[in-house]
């Protein structure tokens, strides 16, 4: 016990000496603070940081970069909103600009967008809904990681099926694959609480003409007839045909990638990350992995674009001018193209010129760009609003689907329930 006590004593003394300098608050005073998303492509993150630091150095300011992961973003921002400690520059997700602008916490960055337009060409008009409110820009679109339909070309050839173009097709081909005994549960559409769940849920509803708002963003409710059709096609996979396993409903963002690469599913909706993963590990399935634009429905192909990151300047910051200049510099043509071309074709620009870059001129690159060009913001056909954001982040849409699959609620009742929840949200957060 005594030697132990001595050892502990020495250890503690050493730690104390090591600790003293760390007890000072990490002083960000005078520094420009920037929060960005930590992505799954560390090399791209490094290029972004280097660009930003270079820009700061030229402007003679010190830049402090902090990172957050996608899952932790709103935890970190919630605390910062409440404590009024938002950074000088914030990289926000698809619904962040709507929420923060509505709070009056974002500065107008129309001038930065105008400058970026000169460098990068016009902004995609479909990206406007997430960042432009009342005629002013409150964020500069940085990049999008669009969801595409991943499928196994070899399995499709084996069962003699064409790549599916509609939600019905996915269902039919999945049945074929199952019947041929290739896979037990080929249909890897997860209606879970991640982007791989709520993004396709929107694409599905919109493709069946079952949006919950009108063009001005006002609540209309999910129309019954169209909603039922949409629910029918996706719940059948779980309930009647059993081409999907209930396990998919509790997947995380990474599990569908892994199931696809393990050769266990034929279809899954995902960002292009599977391609990156397969290329970097020289995966044997790479040659059999194909992508396609997400399916269409009776009302057309109305894709959701929910993984979009945007630069914003919170009005809490005392260095607005410097912050705007830094964003402008990061989005300058040379810097941006360097970042984009270092992203393994994952980060897709929302400006016209870099989209036309030869970099995207590959079979999969074209599909990815095509998806971004026709994607709709959260809350389509209206603009993104705090209410629309909550419909997505509160998992209302995927809950509607899983109520039918898991809780065996009648589809009509599930739609009624969802509409009731959505109405409550829109009553509480009216569209301004």
């Amino acid at each position, binding site marked *: 016990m005594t030697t132990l006590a001595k050892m502990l004593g020495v250890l503690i003394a050493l730690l104390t000496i090591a600790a003293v300098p760390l007890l000072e608050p990490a002083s960000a005073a005078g520094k420009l603070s920037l929060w960005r998303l930590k992505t799954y492509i560390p090399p791209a993150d490094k290029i972004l940081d280097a660009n930003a630091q270079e820009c700061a150095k030229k402007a003679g300011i010190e830049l402090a970069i902090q990172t957050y992961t996608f899952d932790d973003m709103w935890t970190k921002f919630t605390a910062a909103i409440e404590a009024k400690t938002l950074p000088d520059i914030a990289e926000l997700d698809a619904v962040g600009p709507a929420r923060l602008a509505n709070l009056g916490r974002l500065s107008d960055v129309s001038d930065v967008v105008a400058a970026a337009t000169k460098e990068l060409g016009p902004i995609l008009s479909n990206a406007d809904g997430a960042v432009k409110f009342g005629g002013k820009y409150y964020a500069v679109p940085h990049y999008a990681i669009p969801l595409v339909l991943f499928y196994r070309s070899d399995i499709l050839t084996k069962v003699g099926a064409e790549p599916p173009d509609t939600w019905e097709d996915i269902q039919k081909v999945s049945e074929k694959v199952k019947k041929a005994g290739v896979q037990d549960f080929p249909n890897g559409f997860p209606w879970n609480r991640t982007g791989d769940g709520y993004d396709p849920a929107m694409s599905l509803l919109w493709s069946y003409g079952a949006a919950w708002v009108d063009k001005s963003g006002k609540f209309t409710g999910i129309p019954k007839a169209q909603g039922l059709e949409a629910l029918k096609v996706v719940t059948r996979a779980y309930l009647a045909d059993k081409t999907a*396993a209930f396990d998919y409903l509790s997947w995380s963002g990474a599990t569908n990638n892994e199931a696809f690469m393990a050769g266990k599913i034929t279809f899954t909706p995902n960002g292009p990350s599977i391609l990156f993963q397969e290329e970097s590990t020289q995966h044997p399935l790479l040659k059999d992995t194909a992508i396609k634009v997400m399916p269409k429905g009776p009302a057309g192909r109305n894709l959701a674009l929910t993984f979009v990151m945007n630069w914003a300047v919170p009005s809490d910051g005392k260095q607005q001018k410097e912050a705007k200049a830094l964003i402008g510099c990061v989005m300058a043509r040379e810097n941006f193209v360097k970042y984009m071309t270092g992203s393994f074709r994952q980060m897709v620009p929302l400006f016209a010129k870099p989209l036309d870059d030869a970099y995207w001129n590959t079979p999969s690159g074209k599909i990815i760009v095509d998806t971004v060009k026709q994607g709709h913001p959260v809350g389509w056909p209206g603009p993104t609003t705090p209410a629309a954001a909550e419909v997505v982040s509160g998992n209302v849409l995927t809950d509607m689907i899983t109520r039918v699959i*898991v809780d065996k609620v009648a589809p009509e009742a599930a739609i009624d329930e969802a509409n009731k929840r959505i109405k409550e949200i829109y009553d509480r957060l009216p569209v301004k």
Partner: protein
Amino acid sequence: MNALTDRHRERLLGYALIAPVAIFLAGLVAYPFLSAIYLSLTEKIVGYPAHFVGLKNYESLLESGRFRIVAWNSAAFTVGSIVVKLVIGMAMALALHHVVRGNQFIRGILLLPWVIPTVVIALTWKWLMDLFRGLINVALIDVGVVRSGVHWLGDPTLAMVSVIMANVWRGFPFFGVSFLAAMQTVPQELYDAAAVDGAGGWHKFWQITLPSIKGVVAVVTLLSTIVTLNDFNIVYIMTRGGPGAATHIFATYSYELGIMSQRWGLAMAASLASLPLVALLIVAVVRYLHREEE
């Protein structure tokens, strides 16, 4: 006269020594806690000012079918975890009780789940239980027990069992080691006397061992109940509350409301709703212990 000043001095010292705890709890626990209670009585959306709505949040929770599911799940998760931890912990303690050689080492090994960061435990279990790639299913198929994978995290009932299993794995060693330590303080004479009366193993356990260690059992159960009820990481990482809402519990539900939906008032109400139950449990255990003491 002297006695009086002594008592004064004692009082002074008493207050002086309790002051740090008091200041700490008042500043960094009571104040935030009271503000949480206040927020639960308001409509508070992150970033907007709170406005008082009385018990409306609690009312809307009680009306909502989702909250009932969540409350039921939380109860199942907590009670299920605790009961299994009690049983396995007791088995572990009984098995180790008379083992002399290697006892220390085995105990040390068995405590390991307790020191691995919860984030890692949850991720590991999620993977172990994966339908396709999980070690459990792969091994079961290789051995020939099942022909296709078990839906550990897919079947709504089994998913709850699975998250309970992960929670139990993390927590039972603490139960076992605590029970064991308590068992070792039970005087051998009691057992010898019982043996003379011809009592068997079961009889000894129910008549001597359990009554002697019930204080420890009560306290460990209490501590673990509080921790389990607040457990967020295991469920959030393993299932995110899925499939559907089959494993959605208080902690994940408050997160969905408070962080994802930014409805801070309602989220506070949802997590505070579990407090009366725990408070009752605490009062029961503390009273019981006090009675034992007297």
